[in-house]
Every structure is written in C-alpha cells, then in structure tokens.
C-alpha cells in the first residue's frame, strides 16, 4: 500500500474511521438540503408580499441547481473502484474508460451548474442593477449551486474513505 501511494501527504489516521465516513455522508445530505432550501427560500420570498420589485424567480433560476444536482447524481453513481483500475487489470472491456467518460460528463454538469448560477446572477440581477432586497434572490441562486458542489466534494471524499475502510477490513 505504501509503495504505490501517489501523494506525499497521507490522509490523517482519524479520517480513516467509519465514524468520519458516516459523518461525511450525513453532512453531504445536510448540505444538499441546505442548498435546496436556500433556493426554495428565494422562490417563496419572490412570490410573497415582501417582494416589492417586479423581478420574480422563474424556471431559469432553478436551472443551475438542477444541473448541479444532475452532475452530483452522476458523479456519485460511478463505482470508484472501476475508476482506478487500469484497462488490463480486471476490467478488460474498457470499463475504466467508460467510467472516466461518465465522470467527465458529471463534472461538466456540475461545473455548468456553477457557471450557470453566476450567469443568472450577473445577467438577471447585476446588469439591470437590481437593488438589495431583491438582489438576495440572485445571491441565493448562486450560493445554492456552490453548496451543491461542496456537497458533492464531501460525498466523494467520504466514499473514498469507505474504500480505505473496506480495504483494511478485507486484509
């Protein structure tokens, strides 16, 4: 295990426990929920009496979140063990290659969602010069896409911890 290590710094030992892995998965779910409710908050606030402006949250504002979530679903559905396998080891029919393509699509959707959030924020809120209480909706659209990205990272890292754990267990 120590010979084929790629990185100089090891993961700290406490991170290799089953406890840290479960906490990571719970935290990823919580962060995803936070992102969803931040976006829902902007939609609800937009239709409430507090919104004095003519700007409303439409389907366009939901699109970055939808794309980010789609990317998250794709990324975390890929089996991580197939990814590190070289094509001659045990996945003869190019499973690693397929996994990398699917993973690339997932990351593209995630990054597209992030970029879309910034685009909606700039084009719909910054360029027309929307004043502050309505500007919150744009900020929330952008922030929710970012939190989905963060949640994806945490879920990914926790699942890698899971691989280490099962490796230790199978020895």
């Amino acid at each position: 295990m120590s010979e084929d290590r790629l990185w100089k710094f090891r993961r700290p030992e406490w991170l290799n426990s089953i406890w840290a892995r479960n906490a990571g998965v719970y935290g990823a779910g919580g962060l995803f929920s936070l992102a969803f409710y931040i976006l829902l908050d902007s939609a609800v606030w937009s239709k409430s009496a507090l919104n004095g402006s003519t700007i409303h949250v439409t389907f366009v504002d939901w699109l970055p979140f939808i794309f980010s979530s789609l990317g998250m679903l794709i990324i975390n559905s890929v089996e991580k063990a197939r990814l590190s396998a070289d094509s001659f080891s045990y996945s003869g029919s190019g499973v690693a290659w397929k996994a990398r393509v699917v993973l690339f699509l997932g990351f593209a959707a995630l990054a597209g969602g992030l970029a879309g959030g910034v685009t909606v924020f700039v084009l719909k809120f910054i360029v027309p010069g929307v004043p502050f209480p309505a500007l919150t909706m744009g900020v929330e659209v952008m922030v929710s896409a970012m939190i989905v990205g963060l949640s994806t990272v945490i879920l990914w890292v926790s699942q890698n911890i899971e691989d280490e754990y099962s490796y230790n267990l199978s020895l």
Partner: protein
Amino acid sequence: MPTAGLKTIIALSFVLAVGFLLVILSCALWHSYYPLLVVATYVVAPLPNWICSHCANPDDFVESSGAAVLDLGRFCTGFLVVMGIALPIVLAHSNAITIPAMVMSVIGGLLIYGTIISFAMFFQEEQEF
C-alpha cells in the same frame, strides 16, 4: 446505556411531549399551521436509514453496493434533518409565520428528533441479536 429502564422512558416521553407542545403552540398562537410540517419531517427522518439498512446486506463489504444503499439512506436522513430546521426559517423569511413561531418550532422539532434518536440508541441493544 444497557440500563435503560423506566426512568429513561418517562424522561423521553416527557421531552417528546414538550417538543409537541412547542410545535403545536407555535402553530396555534398565530393561527398558521405550517410548522406542523416540522413534526412530519422529523417523524419521517429516521425512515430512510431504517429502510436502507434492511435492504443492504451487511456482510457484503467487498462488493460495495451494499454500502452504497446504506450511504443513500444516510444521505436522505441528513437531508430530512436539515429540512426540519430550514423549513421554518424559509417560512419565517417570507412572513408566512412569525419569528417567535419559527424559534419555537425549530426547538420543538429538535426535541422531537432528539427523542426519536435517543430512543433508538437506548433500545437498539435488544434488537441486535
């Protein structure tokens, strides 16, 4: 923790009653019954974990599909737990409920969920074997 006797049950049911009291009071005082959704959320919250732990084969460590189902359950539970806190805040932000109602329903919801979790923790030992 194995000595979870009658006192534990009484204390837990008392806390559960206080939680329900806070949530129902936060609804009834302002005649807006949205915070009852918090109760439904926290009652549903342990269910994905429970269902997925019965779907997965715990001996299946090498082929990690069993662990993936477990992770899905944990993810959904985390989602629902944060939902129980986020829902009153969303409602209060757009004036559907007032700020005191938000505070009361969040505290009441956390008490209810804490009761459910600690009940599961105290009485898990007997179900194991």
